């Protein structure tokens, strides 16, 4: 007696919905996630610590806290002219001052994505995925360009 089941017609779906499979997460995505997690936590910790130092007056700010209400309603160009502060990475020279100490955490948080891209760049390249590698490389260049301070604007 033939016990084979009758063949069913093949069902074509645009998206296959089935029982759960193990998560299909690529190697570069896992590496990216791990580094992002560390970087984000470090950046947030830096932000909280430096802000506490700033508001508790443990490091003298360039712009005194009590003078801030005079400046924060000005457009940025006017604020820079009034305080004599510079643009770009000039804040690095003021890193020991209470207000600019906060920029360590802010810059770290703004830079962690660049670090993640740098870290994963070799992975698709090693797997000979040159198009994806090129996209990651271009993004890294764009972010570095943005961070460099070369690009300028103002009122």
């Amino acid at each position, binding site marked *: 007696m033939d016990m084979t089941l009758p063949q069913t017609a093949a069902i074509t779906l645009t998206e296959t919905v089935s029982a759960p499979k193990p998560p299909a997460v690529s190697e570069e995505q*896992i590496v990216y996630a791990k580094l992002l997690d560390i970087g984000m936590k470090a950046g947030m910790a830096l932000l909280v610590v430096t802000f506490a130092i700033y508001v508790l007056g443990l490091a003298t700010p360039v712009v005194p806290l*009590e003078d801030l*209400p005079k400046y924060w309603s000005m457009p*940025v160009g006017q604020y*820079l002219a009034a305080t004599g502060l510079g643009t770009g990475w000039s804040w690095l020279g003021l890193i020991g001052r209470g207000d600019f100490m906060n920029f360590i955490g802010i810059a770290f948080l703004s830079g962690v994505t660049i670090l993640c891209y740098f870290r994963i760049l070799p992975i698709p390249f090693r797997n000979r995925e040159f198009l994806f590698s090129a996209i990651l490389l271009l993004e890294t260049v764009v972010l570095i360009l943005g961070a460099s301070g070369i690009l300028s604007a103002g009122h």
Partner: protein
Amino acid sequence: MTLHRLARLASLSILVLTLLAGGLAQAADLPTEATSPEGLPWWGWAVALFVVSFGLGIVAVLGGVGGGVLFVPIVGGFFPFHLDFVRGAGLLVALAGALAAGPGLLSSGMASLRLAAPLALLASISAIAGAMIGLALPTNVVQLALGTTILGIVVLMFFAKKSEYPEVGKADNLSAALKMNGVFNDAYSGKSVDWKVHRTPQGLAMFVVIGMMAGMFGLGAGWANVPVLNLLMGAPLKVSVATSKFMLSIVDTAAAWVYLNQGAVLAIIAVPSIIGIMLGSLIGVRLLKRANASLVRKVVIVMLLLAGSRALLKGLGI
């Protein structure tokens, strides 16, 4: 939990935080004599900003929107800070939220780096351009454009549909070449979904516009990312939401550097906002299961309507 109890809990949290912050200011003997033209000392505004950001963090999670889209029009409209600094802080708020969510979304496979990377590349280039244009334009023009955009978002939130698993007949050549596809395990339904996308060139073009707006207004752009990923390109809804959130960490990084380098970041505005909104988001996530999401979303729409109208009126000099 009823909305009434929810509101009471949020009010109580805010009150406790205000008292704590006020006590800290007094304990630290911070100067209180120098006040802004609006009558509050510097620390009063910092505390108010923290409290408002905390509240926005809760509402943003419950309303299913990013923090930046609420932060910029509300803080820009009702605080004495110049819009340049508010936009700088808004981008950092959106960036911090995206960075915090990113690792979990990526490692669970909800967000897709393959899907995000090509779109984020174009969006971050245009976000840099948008940030530069936004900082170069007169404030009233930016206010006017911001108000119009926020009111546009209200319309989008009101009418936009969502599709849990959109139908994608065939992946287009570009998305196939870039391997913009994946497997998504939906823990809620217990299903695995093989997904792919189509209309990639149109999606890329949309992300150029979205990036420009994100950079110009410091809004983050989840409100626009999700419909494009989900409705236009056909990614499953949860993949779209997660990938959109992750993309903000890339796109907002690009624009945030422009604001930082141009001096448009004030620590006293940015840091309380970031900490406040992140703490608020943590509370919001805990309340999410019990809140009436539909009602909160309506509240968010009304808040955006008011804030957008105020930005528009400020832009018109009214």
